[in-house]
């Protein structure tokens, strides 16, 4: 028996393997992005910044990045605003058709994205709408909303409804209550919702591919570049920048969220 590793050590080995398999490929990205070779393979040849430098002059890439930013921010803001309304209705009111309505909001989570993309394309073209960033934003709104609603419902459930009643009782209007009590108390959930939906929108490919028309988002642009083997190092450096940017964003948002949450916590 004593030669068998303890369950604790087995668990540790499992965790290390799990994390390694999950993140090793991601770690290769920045490594190869500094490698002075057009093909990503070992052994490493030499250190270079040239893949990053050539990105700086790439107007198509910058346009795509800008498009992604517009789509991401718009989808995140719209989804969070609508999510606040839906989550409030779900948690604070009883009304006919509440069950079906929330199921409908959640449906895009389980619908295959390619089906949503094709249906939206058919409908939008049928309506005679031009494909543009607006149509991408609408598509992303659809798939982001379930995440916003989920995060915000738990936010609403986390605070006592009598807070809002107390505000009304002290003479504040419904809108004033939203501004002075509901939104500040929901701040951690709002940040989470914005962050999650922005991230979903940023790396969403299928809907963007179908709906973006002549204005590609970053994932669509990257996919286009993969056809040219020579462009691969550029894509690797772009990917590395994205990883770094999302790490910074996540950290900043998490710090803000924790600070806001600490303010809300009851410490009796």
């Amino acid at each position, binding site marked *: 028996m004593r030669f068998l590793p303890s369950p604790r050590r087995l668990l540790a080995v499992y965790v290390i393997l799990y994390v390694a398999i999950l993140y090793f490929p991601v770690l290769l990205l920045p490594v190869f992005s500094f490698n002075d070779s057009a093909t990503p393979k070992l052994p490493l040849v030499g250190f270079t910044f040239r893949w990053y430098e050539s990105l700086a002059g790439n107007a198509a890439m910058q346009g795509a990045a800008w498009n992604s930013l517009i789509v991401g921010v718009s989808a995140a803001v719209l989804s969070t605003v609508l999510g606040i309304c839906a989550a409030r209705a779900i948690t604070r009111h009883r009304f006919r058709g509440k069950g079906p309505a929330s199921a409908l909001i959640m449906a895009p989570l389980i619908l295959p994205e390619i089906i949503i993309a094709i249906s939206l394309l058919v409908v939008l073209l049928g309506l005679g709408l031009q494909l543009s960033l607006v149509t991408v934003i609408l598509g992303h709104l659809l798939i982001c909303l379930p995440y916003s609603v989920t995060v915000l419902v738990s936010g609403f459930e986390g605070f006592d409804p009598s807070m809002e009643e*107390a505000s009304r009782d002290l003479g504040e209007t419904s809108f004033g209550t939203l501004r002075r009590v509901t939104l500040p108390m929901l701040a951690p959930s709002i940040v989470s919702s914005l962050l999650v939906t922005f991230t979903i929108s940023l790396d969403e490919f299928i809907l963007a591919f179908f709906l973006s028309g002549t204005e590609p988002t970053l994932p669509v642009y990257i996919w286009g570049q993969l056809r040219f083997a020579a462009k691969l190092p550029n894509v690797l450096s772009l990917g590395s920048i994205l990883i770094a940017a999302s790490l910074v964003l996540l950290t900043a948002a998490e710090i803000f969220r924790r600070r806001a949450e600490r303010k809300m916590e009851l410490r009796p």
Partner: protein
Amino acid sequence: MTTSPMIEIRNVDKNFGTFRALDTLNATIGEGEFFSLLGPSGCGKTTLLRMIGGFDDPSSGEILIGGRSMAGIPPNLRPTNMVFQSYAIFPHLNVAENIAYGLKRLRLGRAEEEKRVKEALDQVELSELGPRMGNQLSGGQRQRVALARALVMRPKVLLLDEPLSALDKNLREQMQVELRHLQRQIGITFVLVTHDQYEALSMSDRIAVMFGGQIAQIAEPKEIYQNPATRQVADFLGGMNFLTSSHLSVNGKNFAATLPGIGDITGHLAGKTISDPAKAIIGIRPERLRIVWEGETADPIVTGKVADRNYFGEVTSLAVNIEGQNQHLSIVETNDFGADDIPVGSDIRITYDRDAFIVMQG
């Protein structure tokens, strides 16, 4: 009540779907009165309070405050303020900002606002706590902030939804006294919801006892305790020995009855009408029965055996089987003379005050 009415509740019903939460309530609460709604959970007392505050609407009937119908008037436009059961202290604001929350809308000017907040803090003895955040307060402090935050609005009516139930026993008793003092000092109407009969008895000018969405009795605390209108009211407010008599007769303002093993007794109706004497029930509070000790004499005397004994510190409760009868009597006796040492199974003699029996419609 000699004062003018502040709140009038007229034929108020409330239905939640098919459930009748409130059934034809009528009550008038006077200006400057400390009025309690007392009852077990689910009796509708909180629903009624929330209706006065404007958080629920009656299904039918109406509520008037200061002579004005409150139909369709939202909470922010009513002359009432509420202390919520959870206190609902805004955690993202400090104590002073919590108290100033309602004042902000009145646009009093900075000096006046600060003066009022300071007064309110002094009133609840939290002068030092102004900068403390709402989520860093103890239960008792949050209760005081909730009180100050409501009172600073200078309401005509203060509504209190079980404000003391979250506090421990000592603090609760201290706050009962303080709340009563505060109410006398500022002189506005307080409406208190509670399920604690001692709280209601010790604080209120009048009490409405509620069961199953109906008001069973509205009276002063002493009247409620000494002369409960129904068996339910008697049972809810402390212990009561319920005795049945086959020979109950009503004669003018008095009643007479023969109680098996106790004898013939008489009592005052005390304003009650007994429509069906066959279903009426006689009661006597356990503390109105006394032990007759060795060597003492008393008249009348009931003899029995101690069936059970429970010690409560300052008093002992005894259950006594009346000799030759299938009837228990419960007695509460102070421990000064050794009631806590009476062995279970021993013989005991009991006497009672002749005017202590009351009659209730069952």
